[in-house]
């Protein structure tokens, strides 16, 4: 256990104006599962990019020792040759290619100049068995779910004779079952001598799986904890990550019982012509003024589809049923109409369809409500800066100026921009789809505080979340969605993780 396979000594990496890594040391013992945790912007990704050669040798200070020798990686191909493989959060698979093609993409098995497809398929099959994925290797990757794609990625890494496997938030997009699968696989690989570095925000799984945990904060190593000595616990991790103790991450709040209904839908049924199937079946829900309604359920159960069908139906579902907003019967043909009626939707995929990354903070914040800061179609640029600065202050968005491009912000701050954008339309009903996905503990707490403030001011919130503690900690009432139906409704006093999972999986 004590021989290090990897040692990064005194790594310092500077970007213009920022010290992303400041004298970081990171030591991974052979054959262990080593978790790397820290808030967004703590330097985890930068450290891994230094290791993999994305930031080539010479661009940083310090030494990397891998397998006992000093390494000077000039690119990813160098680090891969040495036996280091990184699996990023955004999967690097080609959706239109078959599983076996993807596994050997970039290091094809050839005899002479021709690709040996038979051998490729044979070896791919073996790799899939190793990762316990039971699919036909000829299936196209796009036909697999995210969980299975993740496994294909790992198979791809293993096919390259990997010695050190690095996973960057592999479970962020997975449901509980798939996550559990993945963690089991990592244990399995460990028994076969593969060393793993796992970057994760989910502290529970870190505690479950880690042999050693290294905590980074503000570009520095805070501590390295040994699980065997019982040094790892949620409280210790959070304390080291944020530098302060959070006794409860969920702000305290009284559960109000208003009778004023903001949104009600009856017998809401939706058919998705693109998929050719029914995605929502006879859904009946209501949302009252000043309440947070949690929507729990497995990935793909239809929660996001339900939200989109309420929010002007941008994907063109065929919808039957009745919708009432503030007591009035409504039917939205475009998000524009939903926004005008006081409904706002913060997407689960802020980079994909939430923010305009190449534009700056202020332009993103005002986009959905430019009317407010314009006269006769002409935008008042000064008023825009003023509005953006107000949200920068009230939501504590960490950016030097509101002219900063959103692409340069950390995940948590991007999420705050996303929320700010929808607060600026001043909605009655705010739909938050996975509001804390991929953001760190500190930012999560801030998002929860903002939500609490909003409902106290009379806004109603629908919160779709795959994290049960969050659903239980924040909601006044919980709907459980399964296979496009409402499988159950629980007032918060009666809701438990077990009950919700039971309803969601039946």
């Amino acid at each position: 256990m004590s021989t290090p396979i990897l040692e990064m000594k005194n790594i310092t990496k500077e970007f213009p104006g920022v010290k992303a890594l400041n004298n970081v040391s990171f030591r991974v013992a052979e054959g262990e599962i080593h978790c790397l945790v820290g808030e967004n912007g703590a330097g985890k990704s930068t450290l891994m990019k230094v290791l993999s050669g994305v930031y080539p040798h010479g661009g940083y200070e310090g030494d990397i020792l891998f397998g006992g020798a000093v390494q000077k990686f000039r690119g990813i191909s160098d680090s891969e040759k040495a036996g280091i493989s990184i699996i990023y959060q955004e999967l690097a698979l080609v959706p239109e290619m078959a599983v076996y093609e993807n596994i050997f993409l970039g290091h094809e098995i050839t005899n002479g100049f021709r690709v040996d497809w038979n051998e490729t398929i044979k070896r791919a099959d073996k790799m899939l068995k190793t990762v316990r994925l039971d699919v036909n290797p000829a299936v196209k990757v796009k036909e697999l779910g995210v969980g299975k794609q993740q496994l294909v990625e790992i198979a791809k890494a293993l096919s390259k004779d990997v010695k050190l496997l690095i996973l960057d938030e592999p479970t962020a997009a997975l449901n509980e079952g798939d996550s559990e699968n993945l963690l089991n696989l990592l244990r399995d690989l460990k028994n076969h001598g593969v060393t793993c570095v796992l970057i994760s925000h989910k502290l529970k799984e870190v505690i479950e799986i880690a042999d050693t945990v290294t905590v980074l904060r503000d570009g520095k190593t805070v501590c390295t904890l040994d699980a065997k000595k019982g040094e790892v616990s949620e409280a210790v991790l959070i304390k080291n990550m944020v530098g302060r103790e959070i006794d409860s991450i969920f702000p305290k709040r009284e559960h109000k019982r208003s009778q004023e209904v903001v949104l009600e839908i009856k017998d809401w049924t939706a058919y998705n012509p693109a998929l050719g199937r029914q995605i929502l079946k006879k859904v009946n829900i209501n949302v009252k003024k000043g309440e947070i309604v949690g929507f729990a359920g497995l990935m793909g159960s239809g929660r996001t589809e339900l939200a989109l069908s309420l929010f002007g139906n941008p994907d063109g579902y065929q919808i039957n049923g009745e919708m009432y907003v503030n007591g009035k019967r409504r039917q939205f043909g475009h998000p524009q109409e939903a926004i005008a009626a006081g409904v706002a939707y913060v997407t689960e995929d802020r980079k994909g369809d939430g923010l305009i990354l190449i534009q700056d903070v202020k332009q993103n914040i005002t986009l959905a409500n430019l009317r407010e800061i314009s006269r006769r179609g002409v935008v008042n640029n000064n008023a825009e800066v003023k509005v953006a600065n107000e949200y920068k202050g009230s939501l504590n968005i960490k950016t030097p100026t509101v002219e900063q491009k959103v692409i340069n912000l950390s995940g948590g701050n991007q999420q705050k921009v996303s929320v700010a954008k929808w607060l600026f339309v001043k909605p009655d009903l705010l739909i938050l789809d996975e509001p804390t996905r991929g953001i760190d503990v500190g930012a999560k707490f801030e998002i929860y505080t903002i939500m609490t403030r909003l409902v106290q001011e009379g806004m109603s919130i629908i919160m779709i979340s795959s994290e049960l503690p969050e659903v239980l900690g924040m909601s006044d009432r919980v709907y459980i969605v399964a296979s496009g139906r409402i499988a159950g409704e629980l007032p918060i006093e009666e809701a438990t993780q077990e009950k919700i999972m039971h309803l969601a999986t039946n």
Partner: protein
Amino acid sequence: MSFFNDLRKVLGQNIRDYGMFIALFIITSIFSIATDGLFISSRNISNLLNQAGYIAVLAVGMTLIIIIRHIDLSVGFLAGFLGAVAAIAMVSWNLPVYAAIPLVLILGIIAGLITAFPVAQLGIPSFVASLAGWLIYRGALLLVTLKTGTIIIPDDTFNAIGNGNIPDIPGITILPEVHKLTLLLGLIAIILYIQNDISARNKKQTYNFEVLPMNIFVLKLIFASVLMGLVTWILAGYNGLSWTVVVVLIVVGIYHFIMSQTVLGRHVYAIGGNPEAAQLSGINVKKITYMVFGSMGMLSALSGILFASRLQSATTTAGTLFELDSIAAAYIGGVSAAGGVGNVLGSLIGALVYISLTSGMNLMGIDISSQYIVRGAVLALAVIFDVATRRSAR
């Protein structure tokens, strides 16, 4: 010292904005030296601007098209075809010029909307949809000029758009060789520019926002004013402002205003930056796609009018390669192929750079084969510069 530090900082931050002006300045200087000043002569500059006109208006429309992540290949032959329609309207149908021009502009809008239909409604790639248009309008142009061949346009008013200049103020005897109205307009433009900049700066200060340091602000005003004054003086030295330049300035002015100041412009940029996010932000992506292609069609018609008017006739090959010239001009002017980035002024400068190359090399007697190679190299360099500065800005 702080002045120079400030200056360096401001220039460094805005190198992308000034890059094209610097390129234009360098190209102008090189050609002026190589041709013993012939290039910078009033007569040549005046000619050059008239040549740039029909590409510039196309480049303006193309800028919007590329910003929303599309392309329109049909514009060249559409311009040629609509130029021919304008000629036929006046010659065969005996329509007055004041009816023929609006008619053709409306036809242009309709043609643009037709191109937009499969793109917006069915999601067909605009490359394919507009390639179909390219073939169709090429055929249509040949068809309408089939019997007559080149159609000579006898209408003086129409021909003045491409060849004539604005009238001078009569009865003033000072500065006999100089066009007084052009000078006056130039002076008014400079005054308006200074006034506008000062009021924008004051407004910012009332909001307590950061503004340029006073000395740099003054330097910028002086620099821009001198530049505008110089261009005015050169133009005034040879018959004054041409109608083409007036048309281009109006088009660029309107589009620049829309793109930089209005909600509509913001929506166009948003769609280019992330169409899904734009849709979810309540922006009607379809509607704006129609509008952008419709405007492109109208500008194609305008380009066709400018070209036909310049040749005083509609020819069977009018519009050939206009689409690629205008796309090149837009790219040289800093429009990003990935969408969401670019501006109308940049594309105007891009068009001027592009035409200056042709004009300058013609004056130097460089043959056409080398001209193409140089133009290609400049296009490549411009795009490399653009990508490199964008990366370093991150």
